[in-house]
């Protein structure tokens, strides 16, 4: 039968394909899975490359947001959860029910940079002004010393640790972000939106504030590694890698990287601030 020959051909080519792929099979079980924050992403990805190089352990990194990282750790689908905020009570109790014991490991310090388009003359904003912008009290840049143009505010999605950190550091209890605020799903997306929109304002992790956007001073202090480290920049926070139980083995080696000289180099080269 012709058809049977064809099936045989298909099977054969599948087998050849499989053989080709298995040529570079790695040691199974010898791997680390990271999930979570897009803010911690650049550090995690650079650590992963370094870790694979020195320890021969394969590391995969997903950037799906702090909330997702926490969920993955609770469901046992990742080894390390990158988070740009501490775990919430609800997450901790959910973890307890599932028998997971989240342990907080500090990776680095980060400042929330308030970014605007470089063509915007505003150089400094007080925390009260930022709060006013995001709660909808100010709708035009001219109300806070800028040009006569409506403000486009960019926020992050509810899953974001950066969004939670922003709310905690800038907003007061009972405040809600104005419904006019536009939502973007990652630090990179916020940055590119602000870089292409002259009237926009947004907030990103310190490592993302590049040259295409302008960071404004908050309460008179410009965000910088030094200002975050000594605490003079008001919008600062810690970045974490959560593990299930006290880290051991490869997981311990990985979360201890921020303490090593090479880890410190990577953190400062990606634009974040060393904690250790």
């Amino acid at each position, binding site marked *: *039968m*012709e*058809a049977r020959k*064809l099936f045989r051909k298909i099977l054969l080519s*599948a087998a050849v*394909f*499989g053989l080709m*792929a*298995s040529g*570079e*099979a*790695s040691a*199974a079980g010898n*791997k680390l*899975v990271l*999930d979570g924050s*897009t803010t911690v*992403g*650049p550090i995690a*990805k*650079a650590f*992963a*490359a*370094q870790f*694979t190089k020195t320890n021969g352990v*394969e590391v*995969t*990194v*997903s*950037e*799906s947001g702090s909330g997702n990282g926490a969920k*993955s750790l609770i*469901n046992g*689908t*990742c*080894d390390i959860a990158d988070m740009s905020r501490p775990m919430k009570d609800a997450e901790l109790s959910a973890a307890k029910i599932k028998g997971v014991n989240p342990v907080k490991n500090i990776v680095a310090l980060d400042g929330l940079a308030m970014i605007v388009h*470089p*063509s*915007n*003359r505003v150089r400094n904003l007080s925390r009260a002004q930022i709060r006013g912008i995001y709660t909808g009290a100010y709708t035009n840049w*001219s109300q806070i010393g800028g*040009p*006569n*143009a409506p403000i486009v505010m960019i926020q992050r999605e509810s899953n974001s640790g950066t969004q939670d950190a922003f709310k905690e550091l800038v907003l007061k209890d009972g405040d809600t972000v104005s419904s006019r605020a536009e939502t973007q*799903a*990652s*630090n*990179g*997306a916020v940055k*590119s939106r602000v*870089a292409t929109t002259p*009237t926009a304002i947004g907030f990103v992790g310190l*490592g*993302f504030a*590049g040259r*295409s956007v302008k960071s404004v001073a908050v309460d008179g202090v410009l965000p910088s590694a030094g200002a975050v480290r000594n605490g003079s920049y008001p919008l600062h926070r810690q970045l974490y890698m959560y593990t299930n139980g006290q880290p051991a083995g490869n997981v311990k080696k990985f979360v201890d990287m921020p303490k090593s000289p*090479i880890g410190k*180099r990577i953190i400062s*080269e*990606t634009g974040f601030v060393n904690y250790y």
Partner: protein
Amino acid sequence: MNLGTRKLLDRSFTALGISSIVIMGLMLLVVLVPIVSNGIGAIVFKSTIEHRKMLYHEFNRGDKADLQREIASSDASRKEIYRMLDTFDAELSKMDETRQQEYREKFEQVKNSLRALLGPIPGDEEPALARLKYGQTRWEKAEEKLHELLFEKKWDYSNPDEMAKEYEVSRSASFEGTSLVRLFPYVEKNIDRLLQPEWTFYWGFITDSSVDAHFFGGIWPEIQGTLFLAVGAMLFAFPLGVIGAIYFTEYARDGFLTSLLRSANSTLAGVPSIVFGLFGLTFFINTLKVSESKSVLAGSLTLAIMILPTIIRSSEEAILAVPKTYKEASLGLGSTKWNTIIKVILPAALPGILTGGVLSLGRAAGETAPIIFTAAVSVGSAIGLADVLSSPTPALSWNIYNLASEHEAAAEIRHVQYGMVLALMTIVTLLNMSAIVLRARISKKLKG
């Protein structure tokens, strides 16, 4: 209707038809031309000496003697630059406090622009990240960086009511009267010798793994991940789909249950793909625990469910299209029903079934939403076949999105993103073309 009106209507309809086809062709051109030209730019481009250094150090590729000769000739020109920096540094320390402060910051900007263009300045600490170890590897990027070195971007904030306008200031003008002023024309004049550009065919873009989160290197792990996911989805969906179609066409009696099943199948085909993604996460990973983490297996299963309705539908159509006489002849010769299905109906329907299958394979390769939560990661190395049951993988569709939005230096590595888009389109096109060829060949064999 009189003949004149009919002719007129007929012609205008023809014109409408032709113009819509022309518009479609133009749209296709508008979409395809930038994708193809930019995508090819990821593989064929004018590379600098930094690219060859990177290849040698990260992939151990290239001729050592050649490279060293090039480095020597480039370093001869670079030395002059670094000497100028040192001279200015000495000059700076002799200036009075206020002038020193004025120049210190500008000097730092110049040094950073030079680092971006040529890599670390001698005396710098060896960087940990590969992106800082090398200067610009691509000539067109190097030209951008050269411009940034020669001109400072400034904003004119003089009108308080309006958005500022951009203008550029020559950096050599702002160092007027110092020794550093010679640096800028020197770099501009010698840029060819400093970076030694030459046209390169970088096939490694397809076969290499990425270095430092896609800053350098290639996209092999993504390509492989895409193939694994698509083929895996087919392994699950194709047999199930064909069996389902046989059931629907040969065994199921028309009744309430069958029509319910059929409409359920059609509904499933219309479900948005992100719903399949979330379903895959909760069902395959969290409930069934097919793997510890995201994995190719979980992703393939999710994709399989997504393409199952299409495969069932197309197989059903193919089976129904087999002439009734085939079946009647087979049964009339005393063959059993099962035998008839296996030996007569399926082979005759095979071209149609395979076409549907391969088209679904293309869809599985291109989908992003179902694999976000079930299989895809932003960085990871190429996995072997032994790891598909437990390891997640990067995949083209997801990494295109990742590079477009989440990556910290998305604007710096657009060429990688375009390269991935072209690779994905090529894979899908090849799959679709193979469907056409396969169909033609089988039909020919069956006729012959």
